């Protein structure tokens, strides 16, 4: 069986992840191998099996909706790479 192709450049763009040309080449080769290894899952017939998202499923979990103290404005901004007027500062989005 041919090793599956992974177009690393396209996938990295979806993930908002800039890669160097060296990383793209390396990952294409390595992840091709990993995906070929994963082909073994096709040997199993899973047509009548339900998927498991959580091993210990809990449904409709809610906690009491009670007000309580949370982070102060100052604490929430403390780790910000850029801020102004008490807000997170990002590059201009709308001209």
């Amino acid at each position: 069986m041919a090793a599956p192709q992974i177009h690393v450049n396209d996938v990295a763009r979806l993930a908002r992840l800039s890669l160097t040309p060296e990383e793209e080449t390396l990952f294409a080769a390595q992840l091709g191998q990993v995906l070929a290894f994963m082909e073994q899952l096709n040997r199993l017939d899973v047509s009548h099996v339900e998927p498991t998202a959580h091993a210990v499923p809990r449904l409709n979990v809610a906690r009491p909706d009670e007000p309580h103290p949370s982070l102060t404005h100052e604490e929430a901004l403390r780790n910000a790479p850029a801020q102004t007027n008490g807000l997170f500062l990002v590059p201009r989005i709308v001209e």
Partner: protein
Amino acid sequence: MPNRLTLSELVRQLAAREVSAREVMEACLSRVREVDPHLHAFLSIDPDDALAQAEAADRRLAVRPLPDDQPLLGVPVAVKDVIAVRHHPLNCASRILGGFISPYDATVIERLKAAGAVVFGRLNMDEFAMGSSTENSAFGVTRNPWDPTRIPGGSSGGSAAAVAADECIASLGSDTGGSIRQPASFCGCVGLKPTYGRVSRYGLVAYASSLDQIGPLTKSARDAALLLNVIAGHDPRDSTSVPETVPDYTAALAPELHGLRLGLPREYFIGGIDPQVRRAIDAAVSQLQALGADVRDLSLPHTEYAVAAYYIIATAEASANLARFDGVRYGRRVDGADPVEMYARTRGAGFGTEVKRRIVLGTYVLSSGYYDAYYLRAQKVRTLIRQDFLNAFESVDALITPTAPTPAFRIGEKAGDPLQMYLSDIFTLSCNLAGICGLSVPCGFTDAPRLPIGLQLLGPPFGETTLLRIAHAYEEATGWHCQKPPPTPTP
């Protein structure tokens, strides 16, 4: 040298005033200064904060009677760099967090502090807990205290090395596919991955949310029970935490195992196991029988599919969880002409190679056209793997396997081959996929070099009591857990 004590012995000595909390903390800090320049288990420590906490503990220890609700009063516990401790750094051994300071305590840290523990240090790990060797840390590898040319395991390599080298009394790690149990095995300590939902994940930086659990790394099974007593329990802030009663995990510890039924899954005893590991596990099985356990063979037929299913599910969840590291609200930022360019540059510069590799893989298996073939299929295989375990636990109380197929490997040995590195987790991954509990306990050594070997016990959901009972009886009979690495690791 009180830093060498087990947690349970230290608690006794603190209560009897044979040692003070400050003396213990100073002994740990002194040990760190002595060995950590070689081992690099810690990324950072605030000694003044640690000593201030110890002094506060001493003031409470001076008042009698001692408080019933502070079972860890004065005990130094170190923490993996993936768990939030208020006003301490949190980097996940990554450059992308850029000097992040936690604004709040994780629930496990709140519980440790409330129990009187002295919470100190940031322990090294594979970046974002992605790895099996601690070589993926952005801040340098941790060395194995038994042989500094070897890795300590991972991803909680710093947590295991620090306990094995007596730099702390106990530590916390996290386990997504074996990241507590495998380093515990490689460093010769006890590591427990609790049942999914047993311990709150609030304040644990998420890698793969449906697999992650926090757990203790300790010098004995009794110590693991004492720590689990404190950190386990329901937390309304983690919607996946389970409102199941927390027993006293020390109550069932006994020196024998009469009436216990143990299973040997035959899929864990096929080719690829180091012969010395195999010999140690066989001897451990005989020892468990001598202690009164009934041992039988059984089958977990879908075991061979666990690695493939795991690396699809874990990377898929990781690609979603790590989307939050975009340079907007915290951490490092690399500027761009627009926000999307800023995200991509920030993430490209901030994440290490293995993290990028997993984000690419995870994004791919979730992407349009591949979702059904990879992610959905892996989730269905996960159902089969979980069902294997639930079937097995209808006829046995716990399963016995090696924790890892080999002892600790050499630094650099697998670093260039991701698939070989992924296969080193072959015996630990299924436990996380099934959501059950698992524990690694020291069960002997290889000959030359002398490296620890771990015995893995797997139990049904909320079966921690049984695993701790087995590990404790085994320790009492063998004493492997009392062995210490060479006093000073030579670089």
